[in-house]
């Protein structure tokens, strides 16, 4: 319990630190690290998701039509509500947790354990500026970009592959989809993916810089905690977001067109 409270307090302090230190991105090495993080999280991850994401859309359409005995219109609605609003950002967040979250937490834990964070301080380089800010901002941007990419692949894949498994033409799916989709759908998933990226990066940086032990044993422990808590954070944000946007507070802002 005390550990959990300490982690929450540490996370909040880190959160404040990150926002206050965003201007550090003006410094050349920090900016370079930020771009490197975007490349690692966004670009290198993008190649691995092409098949899975494009198959996802087709699978959802085929499954819906088969199990629910739905028509094309309902299948496209589900493609929009499920893939675009929910599964896209969640799938991107899971890719980011598994690829980047593990890497960031292990890398920072190793740096902390081997005294490299102290070396940075001795050089007058604040570890929050050089290690945390570019990672958090980079992961945020890359998660949003990866979400858009996965959404595009899943929706396009669903429309292109579905005619092979169901009785619906590409034109029919395409027309119906663009009748339903609204800019607020993209804004909703973009905002959510930015928050996912922020929560993942912050959690992983926190556990990386605060490993439970200052020995090599601390690295896997830090990674396990980072990954578990990142996943929980993502699910909590998703639930909270769904409640706020579809629930009482902003009811009607994003609504299902039936």
């Amino acid at each position, binding site marked *: 319990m005390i550990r959990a409270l300490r982690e929450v307090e540490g996370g909040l302090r880190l959160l404040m630190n990150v926002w206050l230190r965003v201007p550090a991105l003006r410094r050349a090495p920090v900016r370079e690290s930020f771009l490197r993080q975007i490349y690692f999280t966004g670009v290198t991850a993008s190649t691995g998701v092409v098949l899975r994401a494009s198959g996802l859309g087709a699978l959802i359409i085929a499954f819906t039509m088969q199990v629910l005995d739905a028509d094309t219109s309902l299948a496209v609605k589900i493609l929009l509500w499920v893939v675009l609003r929910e599964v896209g950002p969640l799938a991107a967040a899971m890719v980011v947790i598994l690829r980047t979250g593990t890497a960031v937490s292990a890398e920072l834990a190793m740096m902390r354990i*081997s005294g*490299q964070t102290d*070396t940075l301080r001795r*050089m007058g380089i604040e570890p929050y500026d050089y290690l945390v800010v570019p990672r958090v901002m980079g992961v945020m941007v890359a998660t949003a970009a990866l979400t858009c990419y996965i959404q595009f692949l899943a929706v396009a894949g669903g429309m292109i592959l579905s005619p092979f498994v169901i009785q619906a033409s590409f034109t029919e799916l395409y027309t119906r989809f663009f009748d339903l989709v609204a800019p607020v759908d993209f804004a909703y998933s973009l905002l959510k993916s930015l928050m996912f990226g922020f929560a993942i990066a912050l959690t992983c940086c926190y556990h990386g810089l605060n490993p439970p032990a200052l020995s090599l044993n601390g690295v896997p422990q830090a990674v396990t905690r980072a990954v578990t808590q990142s996943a929980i954070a993502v699910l909590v944000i998703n639930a909270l977001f769904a409640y706020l946007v579809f629930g009482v507070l902003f009811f009607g802002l994003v609504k299902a067109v039936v």
Partner: protein
Amino acid sequence: MSALALRYDLKRDGHAPVSVAVPGGTTQRVRLPDTEARNHLVGAVLSTRCGLDEELELFGEPVRGLKRLQRGRLHERIGVLTQAMGLISNLNAWENISLEAAYHGTQPIARIAQTAREALQSLGAEPQAFLARLPDEMDPFERKLVAFLRLLAKEPALALIDGLGEGLNREQSARAARFEAEYRARQPEGTLVFVDLAEEEVP
């Protein structure tokens, strides 16, 4: 006689006091009686702070009671090569060398690149291949060389090198001994201090 660039005094219970005085513009080899004294001296210079039992003056200025800004200014004039070397493992040699200067914007990157290239050529390493390597791909001498080039990039008025030959074989030690000439060629007015234990031989 020139003013002192470094003056350090350490008093410990049960040990003889340690006193070090290095005039500015000279090269000195300081041999300390034990590891603890060495760690104290290197730690004090590195952090520009001193404990209750020690006194440190850099360029005639006592470091005790310095304000953060003053300490920062003093720190900019000092370069320390420790035994741990303090390289960042996920940065290649060039990034390690240029990180501090690039972050603080103190020296132009082009000048650092030129200094690194010249020093590497004169020390017998091929700059392009060497600068692209990560610390984990290097032998102890090469890691020490990166740390030394990082020190040179700072153009320090006072350079302190701790245990230069430690962890190196005979051939590597001979190559490392050329660091002195490299520093002197770039900082003719600078002060160079080699720190070792009394019973060891400085290469």
